[in-house]
């Protein structure tokens, strides 16, 4: 693309960005008080950053214009190339450096908890009744409140999807043209898939002790499968130990019932006072998204986005605790691509209340495992090809400061035999050495773990080939 074409396109993009900033002009009419002042400060900060962005764009517009004129005037292209490179290198730095601010700070889990505590019971009840999607999605609110709100939301969404399914089915019976048939049939498939996913969430929470801590439904998702959820077994607000499991590639809420069974066994293995959470709160990358740069399992896009969501959820666990109750011992457990998400959530600036991290079958977690030595763990089963890829950085089972947990068969002194895990998907199989080890860490008993770095044929091959 020539500098002239780029300049035209950038001019159009600038106009669009400038329009977006116009919404920050002025105040909300008639709003006074502390919250209004906070909102004004937040708007002023956003305006400043917006002005900085536009100024940066203007600088590049000028450079593109100068390059266009220079080329037209016969300046040697290598000289124009060098000059334009200098200008482009200097742009886009130190813009948008201000931290995000919100009017009340209410979307930070600690702020949410304080805001909720300051409401009178009537206001809380009204919010729960009228705004279940808002209340159910706020990290930092008590688990019982979120559970009630999200169950209401689930019922509403199931009813809506059922109604939509009926309407689309009737439309399909009336359509005659081929294009209409195809699009309506596709729509019916989408609605039925959403119904099935909502049904899976309903089945997962339809057991004693389960809590629906998060539910987000997007009927027409651009990314992912359109239903995100987090389901707990046990009371995360009172448990002494909380394990939060994050899944990886190709996963979705449809597997929640089966996953919860594994997490039930994990909690039992961890010991009394343990709650577990199946956190399906991000759009896990799917097979049909492999070629999309922003959504591919081969890239960090879904992990970065999921990491932000997971960090907020994890910070909400401690923030939601009743006053005077000590923080829980929290362990973040990431499987496969979920370990990349987990590491992103625990990166500097991310979640602060996590005590231990366990990476299962990990394709790499970047430069750091997320927690310091003694609190960062890895399990690599024999025959797990994903865990040997090192796609997102060094293989965690070879990183300094990361302790390997065994996934091999182990005979215990009391005569019990813990089963070996093999391949990529059996790390939490009840009765396996791997799941027992994970339970010991989640339950705050690392001294009971069986250690093993899990170095196998894949690791040796990789060493031979220098990766």
């Amino acid at each position, binding site marked *: *693309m*020539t500098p002239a*074409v*780029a300049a035209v*396109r950038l001019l*159009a*993009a600038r106009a*669009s*960005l400038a329009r*977006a*900033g*116009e*919404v*920050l002009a002025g105040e*909300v*009419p*008639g*709003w*006074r008080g502390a919250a209004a002042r906070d*909102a004004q400060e*937040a*708007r002023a900060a*956003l305006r400043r950053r*917006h002005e900085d*962005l536009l100024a940066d*764009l203007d600088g*590049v517009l000028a450079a*593109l214009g100068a*390059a266009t004129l220079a*080329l037209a005037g016969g300046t040697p*292209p*290598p000289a*124009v*190339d*060098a000059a*334009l*490179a*200098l200008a*482009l*290198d200097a742009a*886009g*730095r130190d813009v*948008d450096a201000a931290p*995000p601010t*919100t*009017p*009340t700070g*209410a*979307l930070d889990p600690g702020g949410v908890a304080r*805001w909720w505590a300051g*409401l*009178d019971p*009537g*206001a*809380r009840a*009204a*919010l729960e009744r*009228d*705004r279940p999607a*808002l209340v159910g999605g706020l990290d930092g609110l008590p688990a019982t409140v979120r559970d009630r709100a999200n169950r209401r939301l689930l019922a509403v969404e199931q009813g809506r999807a059922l109604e939509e399914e009926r309407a689309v089915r009737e439309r399909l019976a009336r359509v005659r043209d081929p294009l209409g048939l195809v699009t309506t049939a596709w729509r019916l498939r989408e609605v039925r898939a959403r119904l099935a996913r909502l049904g899976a969430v309903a089945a997962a929470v339809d057991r004693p002790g389960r809590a629906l801590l998060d539910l987000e439904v997007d009927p027409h998702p651009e990314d992912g499968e359109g239903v995100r959820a987090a389901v707990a077994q046990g009371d995360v607000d009172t448990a002494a130990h909380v394990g939060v499991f994050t899944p990886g590639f190709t996963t979705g809420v449809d597997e929640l019932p089966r996953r919860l069974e594994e997490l039930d066994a994990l909690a039992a293995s961890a010991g009394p006072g343990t709650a577990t959470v199946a956190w399906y709160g991000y759009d896990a990358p799917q097979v049909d998204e492999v070629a999309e740069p922003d959504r591919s399992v081969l890239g960090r896009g879904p992990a970065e986005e999921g990491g932000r969501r997971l960090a907020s959820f994890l910070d909400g666990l401690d923030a939601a605790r009743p006053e005077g109750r000590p923080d829980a011992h929290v362990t973040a457990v990431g499987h496969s691509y979920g370990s990349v998400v987990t590491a992103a959530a625990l990166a500097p600036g991310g979640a602060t209340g996590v005590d231990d991290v366990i990476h299962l079958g990990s394709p790499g977690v970047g430069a750091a495992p997320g927690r310091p030595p003694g609190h960062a763990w890895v399990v690599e089963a024999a025959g797990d090809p994903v865990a040997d890829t090192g796609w997102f950085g060094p293989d965690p089972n070879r990183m300094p400061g990361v302790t390997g947990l065994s996934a091999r068969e182990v005979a215990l002194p009391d005569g019990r035999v813990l089963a070996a895990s093999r391949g990529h998907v059996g790390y939490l199989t009840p009765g396996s050495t791997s799941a027992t080890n994970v339970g010991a860490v989640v339950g705050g008993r690392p001294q009971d773990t069986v250690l093993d770095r899990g170095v196998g044929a894949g690791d040796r091959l990789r060493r031979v080939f220098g990766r």
Partner: protein
Amino acid sequence: MRPAELQAAGAVCVAAAEEASAAGPAEAVREVAVLPAGRAASAAAALADRWEAAVGRWCDDLAVHGEALDLAAATYRAGDDDAAGVLGGGTP
């Protein structure tokens, strides 16, 4: 202050954030080049990445601001309902 106005202001911010995120200043420059595989081409790609992140963050924060306004509106509305309930209950 009417909660509906606050809620509307929040919705406008969220919509503007969506519009701005589609504006694409990053994509406008990503493939600019003077010479094939020249220095400007690689500088443009790097700049596009920086802009994509910066504009994305600003849009995210604008949306968060809008959602916070909506949250504040809901809080005020809940408070009004509560007050109305108290006043209604006290009327003979």
